[in-house]
């Protein structure tokens, strides 16, 4: 039983806490991570040449970041750690890896998938121009590279990250020209009862907003980006509110309408998915303890539905306890009960955030036929609409087959939310009936040289 090989994918808050829990119970897990250093996106560590304090990097979350980083450092002798390693395929009991330019294979008996999230982006005119970046990119530039996009930058989208990154940029000396939030202010007021479940977190959010206000940085609610202006690079942003358009001068736009779970590995492992209305996408089925629809597969953290870092830490630990229980290994049941309580409270707070910052559909978006939906292969909304109408397409994989939307290098990571919204709009059948893109290996590009094919 304890000879079972357990693999954890992802060294963010969920994966590290899962690995730590396995180690504490006498199991030596394999921990695979794409990044060079642990922490995931939220607690991402800069390259070693940087000398910055935890407070400078992570603000109020510095103790939590330190907790996660220290946990990884502590268990290092007791795990098989594979940083800078991409899992590009998953099969029954086996993973295909890419590390140092070569492919490798690893087998597993049980697996905890903690693959995290990416920005949920929705297109607007000019969104492929240099100077338009994802919201996560803006934060990574600052946290991982000590650099600011800009100099003048507008933040456009929605979600708690919108205000956090705007605050971080302003505090670091950036010229933040404005914050454009698609969520109406009323939604944030309505969410207060749920948000009060985590008063400290709520207070931080209110502080970011007050900080922006004190600096004279305008924040517009119920507003949408319409067009990034400029020839070659960004010179401004047209945005709209209640049908009124306005231009704002800037050199960069950071955009994101919430987050999307990275679910490709769970999909390749055969996990069942179901439609989640609040996140407007399909997510792998998971029970409260992290068990998926497959006996050998556990899911934790933002990769199984957006819950945030605090929830991810607990979900990682909880999934490891479930795994230990399922293989008949001794484990701390009292701790599992405590975690279940904390996870419940954090999920309640999350519901509040989803009320405050609802992931928007295309209701008020201006989607002209010449607007690019797929940035990999520059396929337009017009091409997609014509294909949908001519072939009576009502499902995403069919749309992919006929237009190549979702078939480019990013495998739909950038365009899938928009493509699903478009299909739902055209077919009138709703997002659930638009389905989801099936994951295809390799889930990220693998050089032919890595599998032994000589260069041309």
């Amino acid at each position, binding site marked *: 039983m304890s000879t079972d090989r357990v693999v954890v994918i992802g060294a963010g808050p969920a994966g590290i806490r899962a690995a730590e829990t396995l180690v504490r119970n006498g199991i030596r897990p394999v921990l695979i991570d794409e990044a060079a250093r642990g922490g995931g996106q939220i607690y991402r560590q800069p390259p070693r040449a*940087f000398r910055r304090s935890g407070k*400078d990097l992570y603000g109020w979350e510095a103790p939590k970041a330190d907790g996660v980083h220290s946990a990884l450092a502590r268990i290092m002798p007791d795990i098989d750690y594979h940083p800078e390693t991409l899992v590009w395929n998953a099969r029954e009991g086996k993973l295909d890896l890419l590390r140092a330019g070569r492919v490798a294979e690893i087998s597993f008996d049980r697996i905890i998938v903690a693959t995290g999230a990416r*920005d949920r982006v929705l297109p607007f005119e000019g969104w*492929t121009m*240099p100077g338009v*970046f*994802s919201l*996560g990119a803006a934060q990574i530039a600052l946290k991982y590279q000590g650099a*600011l996009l800009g100099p003048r930058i507008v933040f456009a989208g929605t979600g708690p990250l919108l205000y956090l990154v705007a605050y971080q940029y302003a505090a670091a000396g950036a010229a933040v020209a404005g914050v454009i939030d698609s969520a109406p202010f009323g939604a944030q007021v309505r969410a207060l009862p749920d948000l009060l479940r985590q008063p400290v977190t709520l207070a931080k959010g209110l502080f970011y907003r007050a900080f922006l206000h004190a600096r004279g940085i305008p924040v517009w609610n119920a507003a949408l980006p319409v067009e990034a202006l400029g020839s070659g690079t960004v010179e401004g942003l047209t945005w709209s509110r209640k049908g009124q358009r306005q231009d704002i001068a800037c050199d960069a736009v950071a955009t994101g309408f919430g987050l999307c779970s990275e679910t490709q590995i769970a999909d390749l492992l055969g996990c069942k998915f179901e439609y989640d209305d609040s996140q407007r996408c399909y997510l792998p089925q998971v029970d409260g303890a992290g068990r998926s629809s497959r006996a050998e597969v556990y899911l934790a953290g933002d990769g199984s539905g957006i819950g945030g870092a605090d929830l991810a830490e607990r979900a990682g630990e909880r999934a490891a306890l479930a795994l230990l229980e399922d293989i008949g290994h001794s484990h701390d049941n009292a701790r599992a009960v405590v975690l279940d309580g904390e996870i419940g409270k954090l999920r309640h707070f999350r519901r509040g955030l989803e009320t405050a910052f609802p992931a928007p559909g295309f209701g008020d978006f201006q989607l002209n036929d010449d607007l690019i939906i797929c940035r990999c292969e520059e396929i337009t909304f017009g091409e997609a609409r014509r294909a949908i109408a001519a072939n009576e397409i009502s499902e995403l994989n069919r749309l992919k087959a006929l237009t190549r939307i979702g078939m480019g290098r*990013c495998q739909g990571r950038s365009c899938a939310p928009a493509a699903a919204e478009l299909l739902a709009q055209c077919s009138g059948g709703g997002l659930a009936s638009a389905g989801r893109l099936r994951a295809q290996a390799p889930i990220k590009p693998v050089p032919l040289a890595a599998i032994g094919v000589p260069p041309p």
Partner: protein
Amino acid sequence: MDMSLLRRVKSTDRPTLRFRLNGAPHSALEGDTVLTAVLAVSNHLRVSEFSGQERAGFCFMGACQDCWMATENGDRFRACSTLLTDGMSLVVPDSGRTL
């Protein structure tokens, strides 16, 4: 004319690295990704194979695949997740060049 899309503001006392972009010499700092090094001196790091329009990456986290670059000797990599090494010679095709 300042073509940069980003500027370094933290921990800027790192050792200097040299690199070439289309043959022209530039400097960067140890710990820079290729993306940071290039966007600190240029407004793009690749061109779209379809329209020939310039691109400057998008997600910086290895998801969007919009920052694939190449060295003079043909090695290809994602600029956001590759650290610059001293003496790298990078190539960005001319804008307007398509498949």
